[in-house]
């Protein structure tokens, strides 16, 4: 490899050609502040518009200062990262950015997690000169069911634009306007709800400031908890337990299932249940649907569309409703685990409790922002009463725990309540990319072949590659599986399917890079993909530690079918656990 030698702050270093000054300095332990820069290494995405100009350094012989994030090291370069000139420039630029930024830090939802705030603290900004006559660029606030856009706080780092367009290919956001009024916004600066936004929340996950935040439902949850006429149930998604600990200073990848259950009980939920249970239920329905379609297909039924696509991810559902609405019969009709849980809770479990559905409040804790939108969809309501009342994110749950004065780290582990709290390892791995399809395979294999699986772990389905495929031998019948995470990858896969170029029987798609563990509602990873990997490891550890690892072996699932649903895909199951999809957008009328 070709290398270059240079000096940074009087220290010599040799780095591979093409290394930026920022990275070279970092390898020397010199931590140059960056703001707009974001490196999502595993997604092969580097957001470096070189727009904020916070990371400037002095390069000997150069007329002006160089942005270290996007300037390559050259042989013989002499770089200084903290001269008076650099520090003055950095401070002045920071003052400029702050001069066009609201000063409501104390009440900002991003307070404490704000990168802009961090740098202001680090640079010791104490006043903003000329603020009294400085005009601010202000815009309309946008409240969607999932995401709040308060772009007065936008600093034009363009990270959200990169996520929305380059990674997710959703195209809801773009830089608009010019100069002082330029900002990232949907077309015509309309609300996100009128845009092709899928509410995947990846923009929120990378926003360094409070410009993009989630809709906060914690207050509503607290109100429900204090309402004596309501029985409040909580369900927690698989990925939450792998990340919640980070909000309390635990190492990424620390599984906090037991502490979480304990905390939820302390907060006062009447029943602490697990979405993993519903995940097992999803496998029963989706797996059966897969086998049904497959069998009919093998028997020559031309009306059957394959591959079958998973439908647990609400952002993905929004995406195909907008972009692939010519293929609405392809995804599985199975509802997502969140909605299956809600439907069962407000029917089966309500009956068990002898309560009416409106006496129950179902709260979900999700790694996701699209779930907030999903639970508000009309088809998931009964007499205007939603199956799931409130969906809160992992971050909101952390706030809730903190505001209930709970010392999370020191909590003793507790278990979920029964019956809707029992789950298998198959339910747990829903949280990571490839997990849903692995769980489905574990069940479908045994149902189809009537034989026990020789091994439960399908490592060929795991990993971080954006698009993966594998062929699983169903006792002589090769089943082709496709997996994509990140909507951009999903688009590639789906385009192939639409063009008839792909030969898959089943495809799993998750909107967020990494799957739900990298969801838009998770503790912010600031683009550090090692955090996502640690969460993934935790998920698979949890699976491996479970005694039951196949959904169809979950005793409470069996009981549910025996007592209530009959069998998978029964009429009752269809009514409660399946849904249909809608055309969104008007793209097709023009082409």
């Amino acid at each position, binding site marked *: 490899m070709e290398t270059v030698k240079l000096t940074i702050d009087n220290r010599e270093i040799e780095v591979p050609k093409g290394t930026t000054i920022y990275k070279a300095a970092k390898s020397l332990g010199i931590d140059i502040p960056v703001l707009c820069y974001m490196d999502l290494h595993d997604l092969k995405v580097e957001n470096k518009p070189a727009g904020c100009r916070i990371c400037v350094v002095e390069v000997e012989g150069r007329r002006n200062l160089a942005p270290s994030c996007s300037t390559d090291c050259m042989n013989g370069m002499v770089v200084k990262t903290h001269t008076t000139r650099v520090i003055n420039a950095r401070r002045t630029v920071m003052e400029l950015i702050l001069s066009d930024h609201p000063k409501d830090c104390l009440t900002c939802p991003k307070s404490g997690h704000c990168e802009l705030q961090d740098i202001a603290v680090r640079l010791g900004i104490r006043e903003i000169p000329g603020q009294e006559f400085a005009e601010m660029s202000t815009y309309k606030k946008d409240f969607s069911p999932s995401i709040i856009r308060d772009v007065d706080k936008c600093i034009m780092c363009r990270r959200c634009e990169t996520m929305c*367009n380059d990674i997710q290919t*959703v*195209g*809801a*956001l*773009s*830089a*608009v*306007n*010019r100069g002082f009024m330029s900002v990232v*916004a*949907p*077309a*015509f*600066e309309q609300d996100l709800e009128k*845009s*092709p936004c899928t509410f995947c929340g990846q923009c929120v996950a990378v926003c360094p400031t409070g410009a993009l935040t989630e809709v906060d439902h914690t207050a509503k949850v607290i109100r429900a908890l204090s309402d004596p006429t309501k029985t409040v149930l909580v369900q927690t998604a698989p990925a939450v337990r792998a990340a919640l600990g980070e909000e309390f200073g635990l190492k990424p990848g620390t599984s906090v299932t037991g502490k979480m259950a304990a905390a939820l009980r302390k907060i006062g939920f009447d029943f602490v249940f697990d979405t993993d249970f519903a995940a097992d239920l999803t496998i029963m329905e989706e797996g059966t649907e897969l086998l049904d379609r497959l069998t009919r297909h093998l028997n020559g039924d031309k009306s059957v569309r394959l591959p079958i696509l998973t439908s647990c991810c609400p952002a993905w559902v929004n995406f195909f409703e907008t972009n692939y609405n010519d293929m609405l019969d392809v995804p599985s009709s199975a509802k997502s685990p969140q909605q299956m849980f809600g439907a069962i809770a407000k029917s089966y479990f309500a009956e068990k409790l002898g309560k009416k559905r409106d006496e129950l409040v179902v709260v979900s804790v999700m790694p996701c922002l699209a779930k907030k939108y999903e639970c508000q969809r009309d088809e998931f309501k009964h007499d205007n009463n939603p199956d799931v009342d409130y969906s809160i994110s992992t971050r909101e749950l952390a706030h809730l725990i903190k505001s209930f004065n709970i010392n999370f780290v020191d909590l003793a582990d507790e278990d979920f309540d029964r019956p809707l709290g029992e789950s298998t390892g198959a339910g747990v791995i829903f949280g990571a990319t490839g997990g849903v399809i692995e769980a489905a395979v574990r069940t479908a294999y045994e149902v189809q072949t009537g034989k026990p699986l020789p091994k439960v772990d399908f490592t060929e389905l795991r990993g971080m590659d954006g698009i993966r495929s594998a062929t699983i031998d169903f006792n002589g019948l090769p089943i082709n599986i496709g997996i994509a995470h990140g909507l951009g990858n999903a688009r590639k896969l789906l385009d192939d399917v639409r063009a008839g170029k792909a030969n898959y029987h089943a495809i799993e798609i998750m909107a967020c890079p990494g799957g739900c563990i990298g969801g838009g509602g998770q503790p912010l990873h600031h683009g550090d993909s090692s955090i996502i990997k640690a969460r993934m490891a935790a998920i698979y550890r949890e699976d491996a530690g479970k005694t039951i690892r196949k959904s169809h072996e979950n005793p409470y699932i069996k009981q549910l079918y025996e007592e209530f649903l009959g069998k998978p895909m029964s009429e009752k199951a269809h009514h409660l656990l399946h849904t249909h999809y809608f055309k969104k957008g*008007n*793209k097709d009328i*023009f*082409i």
Partner: protein
Amino acid sequence: MSHIKVELKPEQIAKIQEICKSFKNDAGELINVLHKTQETFGYLPAEVQEVIAANLNISVAKVYGVVTFYSFFTMLPKGKHPISVCTGTACYVRGAEKVLDEFKRVLNIKVGETTPDGKFSLSCLRCVGACGLAPVVLIGEKVYGRVSPDGVKDIIKEYEE
């Protein structure tokens, strides 16, 4: 950018499709497509941008991002007699600002606006290259040179039926 809502007729949609097609529906030709479309429709309302986006297979947000970046593109229909005051440097030092102020005062609109009767719209432009005639005002295609604030009323009078 403020904008108005319109309903496109099928033949208008067909016209836009035709324009896109003449540029091979190539997203790289977006700016040429927008030019041609604005030439045809006079402005680029949201609905028009949506059709363009669909045909070039790019997001509407991107199209809007481009439309709002370039000052030549407008989402508002211009007045019957679009008035452009040159505020290039040569015109500025020869008093264009006063002329502009007078137009604003007489028409009672701001720059970028159209009079309620739709007759006049007012905009600024940077240098038409007729610096010898500074300050210069364009009404439609017609150039008025050496305009003084006093002369503004007379110029407007020419266009009032």
